[in-house]
C-alpha cells in the first residue's frame, strides 16, 4: 500500500473530469430512482401478495438456474479448457453469442424450439405430454439460456490458467480422474467458480426478455420480479419504483456480501 502511494503521480485533470462524467452517468439513475420512491408506501407495497409471489418466484427460479448452470456448465467449461476437439471454437462462439444476443431473441428461439409446435417441443408434447411455455420450467430454461455462458466462460478461463501439474501429481499418487477433478481441480478454481456462479445468478435474477417471450407472464407461475416491475409500470408506477429498488437492494447486498470472499482471494492469487 505504501509503495503504491509513493509512486502516485499527479493525474491529468482531463482524465479525472471525463471519468467523473462516467461515474455521474451510472450513479444518477439510482439517485433518480430514490428521489421518486414513495417511501411511505414501502411496507404496504412490499407485503402485497403479488409482490411476495414475484419475489419468491424470482428467488426460487434464479437459485435453481444457478444449480443447473453449475451442474452442466462446469463440465462444459472443463471440456472447452482441456480437450482440443473439432468444434471447440464453434461452441465457444455459441456461448458468446447467447451472451451478446438480445434476450428477446433468445426467447423467440426457445419458443420455436421448445414450444408446443417447436422443433423439439412438438415431440415433448406428443410423446410425453410435456408443454413448456407458460410454465415455471420455461422460466428456468430462459434464465439458463442467458446465464449459463457467464459461468462457462469464467470457469473456462480459470481452468486454462490453472497449473496442470497439481492434477498430474494427484494422478500419479493414484487418484482416479473423477476424484482428481472433484478434489483437486474444482477446489483450485473455487474463486472463479464462485464468481461465475454469482454472475450467472445475477443475470438470471434480472432476466426479462427471454422469460416474457418464452414463458409468458402469469403471477405466481412465470411472473418474476422484473416482469412484475414492468407490469406495474402501467397500473401502479409507485409499485414499479419500489420493486426496482428491491431488486437493486437484493443484487447489491449479495454482491457486497460476496465481495470479500471472492475478490479477496483472487487478489492474492489462487488459494493453493
Amino acid at each position, binding site marked *: 500500500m505504501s509503495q503504491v502511494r509513493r509512486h502516485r503521480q499527479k493525474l491529468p485533470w482531463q482524465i479525472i473530469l471525463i471519468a467523473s462524467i462516467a461515474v455521474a452517468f451510472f450513479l444518477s439513475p439510482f439517485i433518480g430512482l430514490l428521489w421518486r420512491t414513495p417511501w411511505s408506501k414501502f411496507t404496504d407495497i412490499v407485503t402485497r401478495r403479488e409482490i411476495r409471489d414475484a419475489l419468491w418466484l424470482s428467488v426460487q427460479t434464479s437459485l435453481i438456474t444457478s444449480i443447473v448452470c453449475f451442474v452442466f456448465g462446469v463440465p462444459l467449461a472443463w471440456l472447452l479448457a482441456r480437450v482440443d476437439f473439432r468444434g471447440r471454437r464453434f461452441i465457444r462462439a455459441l456461448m458468446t453469442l447467447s451472451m451478446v444476443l438480445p434476450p428477446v431473441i433468445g426467447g423467440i428461439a426457445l419458443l420455436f424450439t421448445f414450444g408446443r*409446435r417447436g422443433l423439439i417441443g412438438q415431440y415433448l408434447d406428443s410423446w410425453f405430454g410435456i408443454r413448456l411455455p*407458460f410454465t415455471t420450467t420455461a422460466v428456468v430454461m430462459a434464465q439458463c439460456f442467458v446465464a449459463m455462458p457467464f459461468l462457462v466462460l469464467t470457469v473456462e478461463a480459470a481452468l486454462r490458467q490453472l497449473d496442470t501439474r497439481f492434477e498430474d501429481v494427484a494422478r500419479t499418487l493414484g487418484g482416479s480422474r473423477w476424484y482428481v477433478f472433484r478434489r483437486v481441480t474444482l477446489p483450485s478454481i473455487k474463486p472463479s467458480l464462485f464468481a461465475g456462479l454469482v454472475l450467472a445468478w445475477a443475470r438470471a435474477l434480472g432476466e426479462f426478455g427471454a422469460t416474457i417471450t418464452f414463458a409468458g407472464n402469469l403471477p405466481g407461475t412465470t411472473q418474476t420480479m422484473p416482469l412484475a416491475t414492468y407490469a406495474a409500470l402501467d397500473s401502479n408506477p409507485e409499485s414499479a419504483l419500489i420493486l426496482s429498488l428491491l431488486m437493486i437492494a437484493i443484487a447489491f447486498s449479495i454482491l457486497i456480501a460476496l465481495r470479500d470472499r471472492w475478490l479477496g482471494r483472487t487478489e492474492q492469487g489462487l488459494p493453493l
Partner: protein
Amino acid sequence: MFGRRAFAVVLAPIAFFTACTSDSNTQETTTLNVYAASSLATPFELAGLAFEKAHPGVNVQFNLGASSDLARFVEEGAPADIFASADIANMDKVESEELLDTPPIIFATNYLEIVVEKGNPLNILSLQDLTNSDLIFITTNPDVPIGRYTTEVFKKAGITIAPDSFENNVKSIMLKVAGGEADAGIVYHSEVVAADGEVDGVEIPSDFNILAEYPIGIISTSDNKELARGFIDFLLSPDGRAILSQHGFGLL
C-alpha cells in the same frame, strides 16, 4: 495485425451508417413521429408510405406498441407528434396531462373476436368454450386496451376465465396463437384480417362484444403540428378511410 483488422471490422458499419444518415440530412427531411397502438401497424404503415409520397421530404416514423406504453412515453416527454390510441382511457391519460393540442378525434373503430389456431383444432365456437381450464388462454395486462376489453367481454357474458399469461400487447397474443403455443385469445377483428388466414377468428355475439374506438390527437409539444394535421386529414380522407376499412377497421 489482429488489432487493425478488428478496428476495420468495427469501423466499417459505423462509417456505413454515418454515410446513410448524412445522406438523408442533406435533403432536409422532416420526421413526423407517430405513436400508434400496435393494432394499427399495417394500415398506418401503408398510410405513412402514401403520405410520404404526397409530401416529398417528409419521413413518417412509427412507434408502435401497447397504447398504455405509448401514453407513458408521451407523458415522460418522448418526441411524439401524433398519438393514436386503441382506447379512450389511454388518450384521456395524455389529455389530462394537457399534452394534446386539440381534443382527440375518433377516426376508426374495431370489435373483438376470439382468435384460435388455424383450422380451429379444439373446435372453440363460443365464449363459453373458453372456460375449459385445460385450454391455454392468453391476454394482456388490464392496462393494455385489449386486456381491458377482454375483461369487459367476459363480464358481459357472465363468465370468469383465469388466463395463462398476460402478454405485452395484442401482437404477442397473435404470435403465440398463430404459432400454436396458446390455444386462444381475444383480439381485434382487424388483427384476424391482418393475419390473412394464418389464424381463425370466432365471432363474439354483439350482446357481449364491445366497440373499440380509436382516438387520434396532436401532441402539444410537437414542432410539426401542420404536418401532423395533414397526416390526420389524410387518415380521414377517402384514401385513408379505404386503407383502414381494407384492414378490418370500422369507420364512423
